[in-house]
């Protein structure tokens, strides 16, 4: 049973790959690619899904994959030309196939109406719409069950099998001696050669015997005999006669001739045989070759390795610290060894992390379908332009991306784009809405953008609603950007009525929370009338982080190095207090907002004056000075989750273990800034996000 589940899990993982590939090929086809390998690859993808579906008995999937395959076959052998209409249908069919795979994997219901509609259209293309052969497959399976069921053995009886080989019987690998040996298990008691033929043991390759008569004394059912001899039937005549047969078996149907190649059944020999391309296009060929060189490894094994390497990194840090404590005499060689080890550990860690890196394509490729589905449901026309799919991110991050991206695209489709094409044209835009989804690396982070060219966020309406809901006290005191950010407020939805698409509880607050949980940030830029752009920045990995260790009192904290611009020893002369009570620090002529970590985290202990200012650059707030007692140093740390055994803590993105075994918290700079800037009255009753 467990094995079965393993196979299924593998099958579903494969399906995701196959369907991604399928979509790619179908897109190429739609773009007018006439390379036969494109069609072949698409055909194979559908075919493989069908094969797996049949193996696991996913009925709905088998039926649909079959009709899809039939149509693909027609395209492949040139019986049907691809035009725009057909390409569109094939793409929809790919979507339905994906939906059915998901249904088989996750349970739940695929959109029955859509499945039905696309199935009907495929049947139409398949001409006459013959009923799916999948039904036949299962019918046959049931049939053979029946056979066995009605043939309970009733003691031993004599069975005679006459086998007359055709020419080629030996050439295709049949070996009479093996047959005889294997037949013993069925109760073979004697072999007789009919006609002028040598016994099987003495048979000569060139000489094809006429027949053998095999005598059995057997308790096996007749169905078992048929099943045993079925394999020889392609190259021999087989006659099975049983004595003392049960009456019920008299009118038993002959077992299906299905599983053997039977020339007499081949009534459509004129049908064109699919041209199996021996000269696949160069591009797809090399792509294949590349895929073939990959190795599938269970993620849990890699995770174990990542964790182990993480432990090594910590131990290495402990070792380095201990050595520095005892090595007061400065043994140079020891220093070098420790240094090399530290470099190697780091390389080891990077290599291990690289194993888990994966292009975001695996999640991006699912998004066009999301947009098509929504366009369908909402009756809006939209296209999605995807770029940067090859950007690599740790797989732990990728897995978590699908959900927030889907929400964001939903939001853009539902609220972002204008209601109708006419509305768009009236605003001087092209009738078809455009969504863009892109990914790129930026330093140690990945930047993902979801953008639409719709009407933008209606600030008046958002503000009105926020006031109605009591989220905002003083509408006058709110800056336009703050209004935009209200859509991240829990439970906020700009739609007048809760729409079937965005629904309740899948607001942008969920997106923001999710992104923050991943150690990321989510910002938006709203240009009323022209569109909305959401930018997510995420760490490339959720496992390690380059950090600056700082201390406040007895506690040490980690600031992600990526957010630190510079560290400055505080000159009291540069500090000032603004009339509203907030503090600033002057730096090269600019005034930076100042946040005391001690105050922000309400750390007690004697408040000796902080000595160091860490200047961080926040997308939302610009440069900010975070003041701490001391700067201890720079260190790569292994991220440990607080949530695993506790919960998310505001201002903190996780924890790590330092060289001395103590836990240090990792600061979440943007959440820290939000905490300390939204606290003073700004018209908001509570912190947003």
């Amino acid at each position, binding site marked *: 049973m467990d094995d079965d589940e393993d196979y299924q899990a593998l099958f579903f993982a494969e399906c995701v790959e196959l369907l991604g590939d399928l979509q790619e090929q179908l897109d190429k086809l739609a773009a007018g690619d006439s390379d036969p390998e494109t069609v072949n690859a698409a055909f194979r993808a559908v075919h493989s899904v069908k094969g797996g579906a049949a193996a696991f008995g996913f009925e709905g999937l088998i039926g649909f994959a079959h009709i899809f395959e039939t149509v693909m076959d027609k395209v492949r052998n040139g019986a049907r030309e691809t035009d725009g209409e057909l390409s569109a249908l094939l793409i929809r069919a790919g979507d339905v196939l994906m939906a059915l795979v998901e249904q088989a994997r996750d349970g739940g219901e695929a959109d029955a109406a859509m499945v039905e509609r696309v199935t009907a259209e495929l049947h139409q293309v398949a001409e006459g719409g013959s009923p799916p052969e999948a039904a036949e497959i299962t019918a046959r399976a049931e049939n053979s069950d029946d056979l066995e069921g009605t043939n309970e053995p009733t003691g031993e009886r004599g069975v005679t099998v006459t086998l007359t080989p055709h020419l080629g019987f030996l050439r295709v690998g049949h070996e009479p001696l093996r047959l005889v040996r294997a037949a013993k298990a069925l109760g073979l008691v004697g072999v007789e050669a009919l006609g002028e033929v040598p016994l099987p043991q003495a048979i000569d390759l060139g000489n094809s015997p006429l027949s053998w008569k095999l005598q059995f004394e057997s308790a096996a059912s007749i169905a078992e005999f048929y099943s045993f001899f079925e394999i020889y039937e392609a190259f021999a005549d087989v006659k099975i006669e049983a004595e003392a047969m049960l009456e019920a078996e008299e009118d038993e149907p002959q077992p299906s001739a299905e599983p053997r190649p039977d020339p007499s059944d081949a009534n459509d020999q004129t049908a064109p045989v699919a041209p199996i391309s021996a000269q696949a296009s160069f591009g797809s060929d090399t792509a294949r070759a590349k895929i073939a060189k990959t190795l599938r490894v269970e993620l849990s094994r890699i995770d174990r390795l990542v*964790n182990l390497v*993480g*432990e090594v990194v*910590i131990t290495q840090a402990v070792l380095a610290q201990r050595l520095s404590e005892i090595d007061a005499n400065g043994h140079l060689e020891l220093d070098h060894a420790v240094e090399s080890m530290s470099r190697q550990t780091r390389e080891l860690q990077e290599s291990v992390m690289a194993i888990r890196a994966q292009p975001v394509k695996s999640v991006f490729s699912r998004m066009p379908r999301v947009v098509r589905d929504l366009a369908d449901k909402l009756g809006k026309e939209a296209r999605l332009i995807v770029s940067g799919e090859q950007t690599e991110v740790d797989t732990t991050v990728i897995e978590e991306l699908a959900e927030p991206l889907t929400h964001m695209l939903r939001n853009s489709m539902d609220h972002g784009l204008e209601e109708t094409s006419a509305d768009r044209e009236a605003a001087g835009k092209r009738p078809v809405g455009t969504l863009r989804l892109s990914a790129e690396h930026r330093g140690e982070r990945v930047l993902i953008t979801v953008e639409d060219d719709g009407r933008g966020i209606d600030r008046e309406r958002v503000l009105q609603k926020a006031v109605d809901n009591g989220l905002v006290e003083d509408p006058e005191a709110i800056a336009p950007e703050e209004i935009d950010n209200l859509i991240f407020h829990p439970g906020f939805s700009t739609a007048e009525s809760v729409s079937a698409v965005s629904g309740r509880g899948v607001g942008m607050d969920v997106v923001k*929370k999710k992104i923050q949980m991943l150690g990321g940030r989510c910002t938006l830029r709203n240009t009323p009338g022209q569109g909305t752009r959401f930018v997510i920045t995420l760490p490339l990995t959720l496992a390690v982080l380059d950090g600056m260790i700082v201390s406040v009192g007895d*506690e040490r904290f980690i600031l992600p190095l990526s957010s630190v611009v510079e560290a400055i020893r505080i000159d009291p002369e540069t500090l000032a207090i603004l009339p509203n009570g907030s503090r600033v620090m002057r730096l090269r002529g600019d005034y930076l907002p100042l946040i005391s970590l001690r105050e*922000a*985290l*309400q*750390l007690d202990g004697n408040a000796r004056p902080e000595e160091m200012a860490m200047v961080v650059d926040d997308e939302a707030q610009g440069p900010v000075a975070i003041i701490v007692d001391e700067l201890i140093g720079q260190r790569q740390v292994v991220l*440990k*989750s*607080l*949530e*695993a*055994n*506790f*919960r*998310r*803590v*505001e*201002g*903190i993105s996780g*924890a790590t*273990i330092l060289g001395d*075994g*103590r*836990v*240090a*918290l990792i600061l979440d700079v943007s959440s820290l800034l939000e905490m300390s800037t939204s606290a003073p009255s700004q018209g908001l009753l509570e912190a947003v996000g």
Partner: protein
Amino acid sequence: MTENLVEISDDAIEATGKTKQYVTFLVGDRVYAVDIVMVREIKQWSATTGLPNQPSYTRGVLNLRGTIVPVHDLRARFGGPLTEPGETHVVVIVNIGEQTVGVLVDAVSDIVTVAAGEIRPVPATASELDSSAISGLVNTNDHMVALINLPALFAVPAEATA
């Protein structure tokens, strides 16, 4: 430390059949117990790393062989003052569902066997916290042992994990 606080007669066990083992520990003069299957290990107190903006009974986190485990002060959780932990204090590491959590107590006292029939319900007059956090009481010669319901006391609200 191994003074036997709870003595339950063999007769009583035989009468009710089903028995369970509990680990008992002391907080001041009160005796609490948790099902032994939930207890993972017992550690001597060591300084924790504080967490910002948490209830006062959450004493912070510690490093348990590479995982980060929160430590809660049981005395403070039941409304008492914060424990001032020293070398004699212990942290009982327990599993609550999928999570591992540390509970700071004064001392661990014993392992006792309790028959199901001997567990008495919490009186209706108990405070709201007590009635949800205590799943039953067991009386002994000179002590009352409160069986504590760890999930009710320390489980993380569903919202926070979403």
